[in-house]
């Protein structure tokens, strides 16, 4: 019998249940679709290393999914809570009719179960459809092809989804049963009459809390901007903590604060429907501040995620173009690592790496058309440093107001002394790359830095330390002190930062290079020659490359090819973009969903209120505006705060991204803004229009039209 009542209830209050149902189905759908990415990859024909990429990606997604499940869980419980609260009176009637609390619980359980199972089934079907679409999107991203129509079903994803939602569901069930059994009959019966208790906090307290919250957020911003994210110490954690508490407090206090503030101005408060709108907001925000804070946090992560993801992906592509000027770069350390400076096999060759390569690599002249060797010198024949100044000392003597992140990152390896590069070698490199060379006047030197984001720093160094002692001579920086030719192929540039380019005769006889790079150009098409070239070099040096002692790894310690870098990063780009979109999309939709649910489930209550307004003769325009303000505030408030937080966080993230890839986040901002506006704005619009049509319908009834 209870089952019959329960199912009847679901049928009767379909609209109320539909919100719960939609949330659940939506969650299941998205969760399944992203969970099935690995299995989709099996269907798509893609290269082996791309496949590994996808597997790594789905591992990360797995971690992120835990986070998503928590949010979805919250969503479901939240939607459910509304449902239960709306029906208090109904439960009250059951109890007065003599039903036991246990029986009412049974009804609730059956109801939730029925809706849940159907939602799970519908969600899975939709999820399979969505994953089918996503499979083609993934294929496009990886530039792979799918032959014909393939139906992909992932059993693991399905099982995971069912397990996760069974868990969420259990929580909901326990929540419902405890809520129902805790209600007192008197509250249930009066549920319709007593609206949510409107607590009014005292104005001074609200103002104080508001000021405190703004101060906390301000301090957090300042800490973050000053210390960045990577500096050691408690700064980042501190900033995060402060901003969290500050935001919570902000939304908590603003509910009491804003109403009182507007009330102090009768002009504003006693005009049109302002009073009504303010009260309307206040009646809910007392309980809604927590969910608004949560929405704000999710929006923040979404904006940061999407923006960082886009910019890292774009930045990688751009810096990659700059970091792959040579077809192949071979780096070695002829004297071992900096601290060793011993003589090894390189000394026997007179440090001529190209001659060694020509002798060792089979078919060298056929494979390579051009090669330039560039050496960095740090010690003279006796092993004493050529330049006494260390990078650290230079920085210490430089007043640079750059960002915290950059300085922190640089501080890591600044104890070494500056190295010297003969200008002839630098010019040879320029010539090979087809760039104009440099000329040095007597006693001049240049600073070599191929990481563009550090240019400003080095310019400041050269400007404030115009002279430098090297090999017993005083050198001054040329008028344009920075040169930026790529030292060796690197995914993001940055293979040399702070070497001095000096006239060849500055270097004393007998000095031997600590670091050598040979940049080579292929004889023919890059992609075509690549396999042969790599095979030949590996064939010759497989035993010394990359392992054992750096001293013995002459002339190849490390092999980098432009083609290799490009292939490697296309996978990374896709992975990062995918991740960013996944997180961003999920979070944004969840936020919008929470807000839309909140507003729509309130709409029923609001309808009667707006009808009273219509009966009092408020114009439709006025009513629409009031509704827009009410819905708008809920959507806009968390967005504004989240955008403020994100702006600060992104300015710091920007430092890191710029340092790693030379890419400025600003460019990705346009894309992110479009993304947010379309998705979030769409939800806002739909919510507003839906509520308005509900209100207008009832208003028309009131007007007899």
């Amino acid at each position, binding site marked *: 019998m209870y089952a019959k009542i329960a199912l009847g209830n679901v049928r009767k209050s379909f609209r109320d249940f539909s919100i719960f149902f939609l949330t659940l189905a939506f969650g299941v759908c998205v969760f399944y679709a992203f969970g099935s990415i690995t299995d989709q990859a099996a269907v798509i024909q893609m290269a082996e290393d791309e496949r590994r990429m996808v597997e790594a990606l789905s591992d990360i997604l797995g971690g992120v999914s835990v986070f998503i499940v928590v949010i979805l869980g919250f969503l479901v419980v939240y939607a459910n809570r509304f449902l239960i609260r709306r029906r208090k009176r109904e439960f009250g009637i059951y109890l007065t009719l003599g039903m036991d609390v246990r029986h009412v619980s049974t009804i609730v359980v059956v109801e939730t179960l029925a809706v849940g199972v159907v939602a799970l089934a519908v969600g899975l079907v939709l999820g399979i459809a969505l994953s089918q679409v996503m499979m083609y999107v993934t294929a496009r991203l990886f530039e792979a092809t799918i032959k014909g129509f393939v139906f992909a079903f992932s059993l693991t994803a399905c099982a995971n989804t069912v397990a996760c939602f069974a868990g969420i569901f259990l929580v909901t069930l326990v929540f419902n049963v405890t809520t129902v059994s805790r209600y007192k009959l008197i509250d249930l019966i009066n549920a319709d009459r007593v609206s949510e208790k409107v607590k009014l906090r005292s104005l001074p307290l609200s103002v104080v809390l508001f000021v405190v919250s703004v101060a906390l957020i301000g301090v957090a911003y300042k800490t973050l901007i000053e210390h960045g994210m990577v500096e050691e110490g408690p700064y980042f954690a501190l900033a995060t903590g402060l901003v969290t508490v500050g935001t919570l407090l902000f939304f908590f206090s603003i509910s009491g604060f804003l109403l009182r503030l507007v009330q102090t101005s009768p002009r504003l408060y006693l005009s*049109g429907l302002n*009073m009504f709108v303010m009260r*309307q907001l206040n009646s809910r925000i007392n309980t809604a501040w927590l969910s608004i804070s949560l929405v704000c946090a999710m929006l923040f992560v979404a904006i940061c995620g999407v923006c960082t993801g886009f910019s890292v992906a774009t930045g990688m592509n751009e810096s990659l173009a700059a970091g792959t000027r040579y077809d192949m770069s071979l780096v070695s350390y002829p004297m071992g690592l900096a601290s060793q400076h011993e003589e090894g096999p390189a000394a026997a060759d007179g440090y001529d790496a190209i001659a060694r390569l020509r002798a060792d690599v089979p078919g060298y002249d056929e494979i390579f058309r051009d090669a330039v060797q560039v050496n960095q010198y740090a010690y003279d024949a006796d092993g004493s440093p050529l330049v006494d100044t260390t990078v650290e000392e230079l920085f210490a003597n430089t007043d640079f107001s750059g960002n915290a992140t950059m300085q922190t990152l640089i501080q890591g390896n600044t104890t070494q002394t500056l190295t010297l590069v003969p200008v002839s070698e630098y010019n040879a490199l320029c010539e090979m790359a087809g760039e104009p060379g440099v000329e040095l006047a007597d006693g001049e030197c240049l600073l070599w830095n191929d990481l563009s984001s550090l240019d400003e720093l080095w310019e400041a160094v050269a400007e404030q330390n115009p002279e430098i002692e090297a090999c017993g001579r005083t050198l001054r920086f040329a008028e344009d002190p920075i040169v930026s030719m790529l030292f060796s192929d690197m995914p993001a540039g940055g293979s040399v930062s702070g070497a001095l380019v000096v006239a060849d005769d500055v270097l004393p006889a007998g000095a031997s290079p600590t670091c050598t790079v040979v940049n080579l150009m292929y004889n023919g098409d890059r992609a075509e020659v690549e396999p042969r070239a790599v095979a030949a070099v590996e064939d010759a040096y497989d035993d010394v490359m990359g392992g054992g002692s750096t001293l013995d790894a002459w002339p190849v310690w490390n092999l980098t090819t432009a083609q290799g870098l490009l292939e490697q990063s296309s996978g990374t780009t896709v992975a990062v973009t995918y991740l960013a979109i996944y997180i961003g999309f999920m979070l944004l939709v969840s936020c919008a969903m929470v807000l839309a649910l909140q507003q729509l489930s309130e709409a029923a209550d609001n309808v009667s209120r707006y009808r009273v307004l219509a009966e009092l*003769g*408020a114009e439709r325009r006025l009513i629409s505006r009031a509704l827009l303000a009410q819905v708008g505030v809920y959507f806009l408030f968390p967005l504004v705060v989240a955008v403020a937080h994100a702006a600060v966080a992104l300015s710091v993230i920007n430092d890191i991204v710029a340092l790693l890839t030379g890419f400025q986040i600003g460019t990705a901002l346009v894309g992110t803004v479009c993304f947010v506006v379309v998705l979030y704005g769409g939800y806002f619009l739909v919510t507003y229009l839906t509520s308005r049509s509900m209100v207008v319908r009832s208003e028309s009834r009131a*007007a*007899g039209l």
Partner: protein
Amino acid sequence: MAPSHVRPDAAAASARPVLSCQGVDKLYGSRTNVTRALDDVSFDVAPGEYIAIMGPSGSGKTTLLNCISTIDRPTSGHILVDGQDITSLRSGQLSRFRRERLGFVFQDSNLLDTLTARENIALALTINHAPAREVPARVEQVAARLGVADVLDKFPHQMSGGQKQRVAAARAIVTNPSLVLADEPTGALDSKNSRRLLESLEALNADGATIIMVTHDSFAASYSRRALFLKDGRIFNEIVRGSKTRKAFFDEIMDVVSFLGGEGADVR
């Protein structure tokens, strides 16, 4: 609102009526099965009058009130308020008409639960674009007249039913409407609170407000100056209180009611 010293029934003939219903018909249902809720109803209400519309359930009294209040439209006939035919107003004009000319008191006070009493009353003014600086004083004044000055800062759920109805009455008259429409205002009140509300309405009428009250309660009707009786959508009878005491008027009303066979027929 200056008190009117003209007795309504004396002035009724001379002044232009506030409300004039002319041959109002209201039909419901399909072509084959027509229900005639209002059948050629015609009457005038003079400024400052206090009219009770009585009748048993289904007699059409709520339909009539809905037509007057522009919540519903008559099928044929005309309703003139201050000489303006409201049956031909479009929806934009309707809301303007409602907020400028009418004041409502409903059976369930219909106050907004999120607003305090003060704000509920003020809302009627702000919707009417009253200047903000006038609002507080006018709210205080009308609240004092209806005896709700001490509950102004309470929310509806903190007030008794009677207080809520009096706040609703205050909201209805604060805009100085041409016509106050009350639909079973005492329906949900106990006798003490009923009397209190009716006395308030009587006082408002004495100050010049024109009131039309729909009720099936003879006691409530006895506070009016004139009672119209509806039966099956037609005006069945009309009695004027004139100089009679309220008790005498009540007895007269009861006679008609028992003749009609409505409620209270066996109270006598």
